[in-house]
């Protein structure tokens, strides 16, 4: 806790300046004060938590889930087949330098306002870190250890489960820690593009109604989801990689 003292001071100062600034500017639809936002969250708690939150959570869960399944399958296939690796890996890396997300509006044409247009955006944004980090994890399995396994007569299956999977886990978790906050962003961006409900949608909705605090309130909830999910992954990582505890 003591380590974060300065950070806490910094954030307090920031909130204080924001509050003072907002009161000074006094046009809450442009710059709502933190206190106002907090009150708005309280006021809208039922609406936010019971109506919009579950919808956004569903997008995050389904999107992240599909990314995980596809990413792990693809990474494993590339790990097994050198040909697949040579075909897919460069495409994957190059795909990162191009803004596929800019195609998001057309997904709405394909999938309408259903959950799938948002899920696709979330998948696009989270698929890469998961796949590449898992694959890099497999590759990180030391060549020397692989040879040791061979000299002990290990089967391909044993090599995979006893060496490559444990070797890949740290890198996999790093990827997951990147992907989880991204999935929150992906769901929010997806909801801008076509939705009837959800926290990202609600925030934009509030904007057309000159309700500044209402714009921020769902974003605060989204942030809390982000922090919560991230923390869960960190805890899971600590639990599974307990050998890394110094």
């Amino acid at each position, binding site marked *: 806790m003591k380590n974060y003292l300065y950070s806490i001071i910094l954030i307090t100062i920031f909130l204080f300046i924001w509050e003072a600034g907002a009161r000074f500017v006094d046009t809450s639809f442009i710059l709502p004060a933190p206190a106002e936002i907090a009150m708005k969250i309280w006021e809208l708690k039922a609406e936010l938590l019971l109506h919009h939150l579950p919808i956004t959570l569903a997008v995050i869960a389904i999107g992240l889930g599909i990314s995980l399944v596809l990413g792990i399958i693809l990474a494993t296939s590339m790990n097994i087949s050198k040909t697949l690796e040579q075909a897919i890996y460069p495409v994957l890396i190059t795909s990162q330098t191009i803004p596929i997300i800019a195609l998001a509006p057309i997904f709405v044409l394909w999938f309408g306002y259903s959950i799938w247009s948002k899920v696709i955006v979330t998948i696009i944004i989270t698929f890469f870190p998961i796949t590449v980090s898992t694959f890099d994890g497999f590759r990180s399995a030391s060549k020397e250890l692989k040879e*040791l396994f*061979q000299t*002990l007569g290990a089967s391909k299956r044993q090599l995979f489960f006893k060496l490559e999977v444990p070797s890949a886990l740290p890198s996999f978790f790093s990827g997951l820690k990147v992907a989880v906050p991204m999935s929150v962003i992906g769901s929010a961006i997806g909801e801008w593009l076509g939705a009837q409900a959800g926290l990202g949608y609600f925030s934009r909705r509030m904007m057309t109604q000159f309700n500044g605090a209402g714009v921020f309130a769902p974003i605060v909830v989204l942030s809390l989801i982000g922090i919560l999910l991230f923390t869960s992954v960190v805890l899971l990582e600590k639990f599974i990689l307990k050998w890394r505890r*110094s």
Partner: protein
Amino acid sequence: MNGEQNKKLALQFKNVDFHYRNAAGEIPILKNMNLSVADGGFVSIIGASGSGKSTIFRLIVGLEERTGGSIYLNEKQVADRPGKVGYMPQQDLLMPWRTVLQNAALPLELQKENHLDRGTVQNLLEAFGLKGYEDKYPHELSGGMRQRVSFLRATLSGSNVLLLDEPFSALDAMTKLFMQEWLLEQWEQQQSTILFITHDISEALFLSDRIFVITETPFTTLKEIEVPLERPRRQHDLDKKEVAELKNNLLEQFRMRV
């Protein structure tokens, strides 16, 4: 003509050929090479860097495929060699996510035909000075202890032949001396055959019955040297005149090559 002739052979190379292949073409390492190691012996291989010491081991364990000749293990030519010898590589190569016990017991997990049981492992853990450390992770151990876990793992492969590739090169000079004595002790108890690669002439002299010297690459035979020392040995036995002379001869031979 000497006593060893009557002993069984633990390892034998007969006319073995081997070359690496790279962009520039073939790099021959072994040419029609012959070598034999008697059961229960402690044999060191010394040679300059890149002369092909590790290659010999890789051929024995089957990580490289010979291009000609045959290799016999315990007087049988084994087709599928993996799993048939205990191999302790240069680095300790412990898996950081496994405890000491889990690391050491790896061969038991991987080899169906491995008949050692957990009881034996427990006994050996004690013999190797690892009692009480079973559930520690490798990063919690000192360098010397890690080497002992690695050695225990090689032992547990259940083979009578152990290949050790520069196992002590990463240790500091004093820990190294301690580990050498410890290794001899274990070897005398286990009754196994040890092939030991090293750069360190004193180390080779202190540990081995015989030393194979690689003088050129590719090689056909290895120069063989008998170490004129009785067992058990102590470090100061190396100061005996004939051993000291032997050592200085070897040193002179390598001086030109470094």
